[in-house]
């Protein structure tokens, strides 16, 4: 069979009545409100059905039932996403995968010489890492069983799943659907690079078993054969940015079928099982360097990422406003920012983790020392630690800025209930990061909005957080947001480098790709899921834009 043709497998069906489910929008709103929201905090979610399948058969049965009832399905897992992908804005059914959270097993891919974990969609990243790091795996969990991999695995050094999207309570299924990334993407790439195999139930109620490397697009087409029909999927023809990106469907001319599903925000169906690659774990050493101006800090970033001898785990950026926010918080609540005083003269900080190996530490540090000196800083001015509890401290420090911002906004909400933070998620190509930062500061200072900038500078992907003081500020901020999106796109970047599009960033996707490209995405969806059964409203709406 040609390599662009995949045949879907039929699955037996359970009786719908045996599946745990709740019917009635009122009872769901009153007794199960948590299933109507996610970390985006957008309101308006409502559902007629709430179902808790425990296996593939039950999922198929739910799909058939909802087709009969003419109800759309919103797939729900840990609901840690922040663009509303799991919020059922159009009603219908919420199908929670929370009862499918098993660690199925572990195997060794002899062709790739790599270990992988086989898991159900709702297992969290924390749990995967706990099981893998502590090697809490039974011999009966070897994949395949006769290979007895577990014994060999127990002799390996500590392994882990390296993607860390900050929220480690995220589910693996959600991470795959969102192609989750995070700070460590700088070194390890995004979720996409770590998925070995997927099982996906599509709108016909049949399952696709997709190992990476087996199904490739040919002449821009995939063929999916099901029992009753044959779907011809036209691979979109638009170009993806070179910069870090989580906006829109993935595409390349000879793409792997598995990549169509990764990052598709659940619009093509249920991920029911995944194999993810594991990696040997190297301890880290955390560092924070301080600079008296932003130009020096960005110069340091460029020097650090050009090193041929080592690659930092990540590089995180804090602008002057972010440091001021941290200093002010230190004064009133020293434990919240559990760090020594941030130097008064510091106007920018770069936090970066390195792999900690005693035998290369000296050489690495000396090289970094030279880099720092070129940027008017020094090893003496740079915090550094590697004890486990120190690493936690540094992690809290990195996450303190968004937390403080959220607290400030929560306070302002008391006066203006519909006020919210405006957080950007845009990336640009390497060479434009300096210009982009200048652009942010210039525009924001011109209009006098309160803001902080922090984030993943290693990937040229910083978050601008605008803190509106009133409704006028909010409107003004929204206009700027659009300007930023246009600028990022003109610098070869993405309007959403890691959060995705979900239900709240459609207009920015338009800025990035244009209507024609979005219609190509919509075409894929219409072919595979003609009734927009799965996750309607994610990435784009059903209605064609002109």
């Amino acid at each position, binding site marked *: 069979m040609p390599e662009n043709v995949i045949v879907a497998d039929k699955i037996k069906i359970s009786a719908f009545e045996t599946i745990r489910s709740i019917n009635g929008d009122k009872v769901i709103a009153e007794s199960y409100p948590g299933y109507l929201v996610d970390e985006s905090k957008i309101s308006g979610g409502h559902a007629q059905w709430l179902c808790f399948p425990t296996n593939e058969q039950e999922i198929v049965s739910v799909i058939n039932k909802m087709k009969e009832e003419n109800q759309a399905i919103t797939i729900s897992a840990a609901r840690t996403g922040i663009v509303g992908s799991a919020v059922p804005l159009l009603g219908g059914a919420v199908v929670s995968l929370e009862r499918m959270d098993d660690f199925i097993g572990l195997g060794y891919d002899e062709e790739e010489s790599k270990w992988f974990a086989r898991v159900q969609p709702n297992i969290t990243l924390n749990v995967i890492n*706990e099981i893998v*790091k*502590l090697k809490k795996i039974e011999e009966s969990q070897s994949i395949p069983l006769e290979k007895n991999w577990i014994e060999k695995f127990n002799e390996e050094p500590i392994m882990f799943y390296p993607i860390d999207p900050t929220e480690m309570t995220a589910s693996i299924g959600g991470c795959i659907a969102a192609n989750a990334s995070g700070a460590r993407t700088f070194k390890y790439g995004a979720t996409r690079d770590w998925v070995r195999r997927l099982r996906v139930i599509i709108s016909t109620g049949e399952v696709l078993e997709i190992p990476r490397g087996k199904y490739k697009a040919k002449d821009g087409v995939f063929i999916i054969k099901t029992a009753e029909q044959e779907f011809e999927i036209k691979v979109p023809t638009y170009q993806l940015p070179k910069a870090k990106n989580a906006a829109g469907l993935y595409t390349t001319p000879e793409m792997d079928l598995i990549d169509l599903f990764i990052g598709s925000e659940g619009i093509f169906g249920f991920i029911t099982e995944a194999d993810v690659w594991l990696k040997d774990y190297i301890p880290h*050493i955390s*560092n924070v360097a301080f600079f008296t101006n932003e130009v020096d800090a960005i110069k340091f970033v460029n020097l650090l990422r050009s090193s041929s001898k080592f690659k930092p785990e990540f590089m995180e950026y804090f602008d002057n406003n972010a440091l001021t926010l941290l200093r002010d918080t230190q004064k009133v609540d*020293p*434990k919240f920012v*559990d*760090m*020594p005083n941030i130097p008064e003269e510091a106007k920018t900080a770069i936090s970066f983790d390195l792999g900690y190996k005693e035998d290369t*530490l*000296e050489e690495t*540090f*000396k090289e*970094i*020392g030279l880099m720092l000196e070129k940027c008017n800083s*020094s*090893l*003496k*001015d*740079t*915090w*550094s*630690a590697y*004890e*486990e*509890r*120190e690493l936690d*401290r540094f992690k809290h420090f990195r996450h303190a800025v968004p937390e403080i911002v959220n607290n400030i906004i929560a306070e302002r909400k008391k006066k203006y209930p519909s006020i919210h933070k405006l957080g950007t998620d845009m990336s640009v190509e390497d060479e434009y990061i300096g210009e982009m930062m200048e652009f942010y500061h210039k525009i924001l200072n011109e209009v006098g909005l309160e803001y902080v900038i922090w984030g993943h500078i290693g990937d040229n992907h910083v978050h601008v957080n605008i803190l509106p003081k009133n409704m006028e500020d909010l409107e003004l901020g929204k206009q700027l947001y659009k300007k930023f999106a246009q600028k990022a796109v003109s610098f070869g970047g993405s309007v959403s480098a890691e959060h995705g599009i979900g239900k709240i960033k459609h207009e920015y996707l338009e800025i990035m790709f244009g209507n024609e490209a979005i219609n190509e995405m919509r075409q894929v969806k219409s072919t595979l899921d003609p009734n927009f059964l799965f996750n309607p409203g994610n990435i784009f709406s059903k209605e064609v834009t002109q």
Partner: protein
Amino acid sequence: MKIVVLAKQVPEADKVAVDPETGTLIREGVAAILNPYCEYALDEAVKLKNSHPELEIEVIAISMGPPFAVTALMRCLELGADEAYLLSDRKFAGSDVWATSTALKEGVAKLVPDFDLILTGKQAIDGDTAQVPAETAEQLGVPQITYGVETEIENKRIKVKRETDYGYQVLSARLPTLVTMSKGSNIRRIPSMQDVLDARKKKLEVKSADDLGIDESKVGLSASPTQVDRIFAPPEKAGGALVPEGTDPKVAARKLYDFLKENNYL
């Protein structure tokens, strides 16, 4: 002037659980850290060193433990100790508080015979016995001041502000003396990359029982008069009583008074 800091490596306490069946500590996957109270002691030593340049203070960190405990000593060096020694030997295995203090006493006596001050944590956060410092002081024949929060050196004496159940007490002793530290600064220090680099060039040596001329019969399990019978998690404290919001202030005050009275606080 020489200050010895006795330091211990411990598992990160809040991540250790007790196996309910065997009664032993589950240390799997739990990271080892420098005992926080020992870190306070080291901070105090570095503070004295920095505030008394005229005394030319040298800070020497000493620990007894398995070979991997060098990482705790490396942290001491990063945080400002000048040199460090790890007493490590299979012969020390199974030592209780007394046998440990014997080894430490021998180590201090051999490695820093001219010490002026010993600073150490008031207790380690794993065993929580608080016995080793006191026993070490006894064996060395020097005075001891426990639960210190602030120290000052004046005319070959050390003045220590110490915690008691009823407040603070200030004691003074002639040097050499052993002082255990209870509390450090609110925000712990962080070494710089330069400190981390410099620490690698400082002296860090591992010493065996033979190196120190310690008699095998005085250390280890067989020289330990005490043994651990059982380990268990202390019962969780029950939550306090709350006077509901909106209660009439007079009623609330009465309730509070009754509560304090009943519990002998008044």
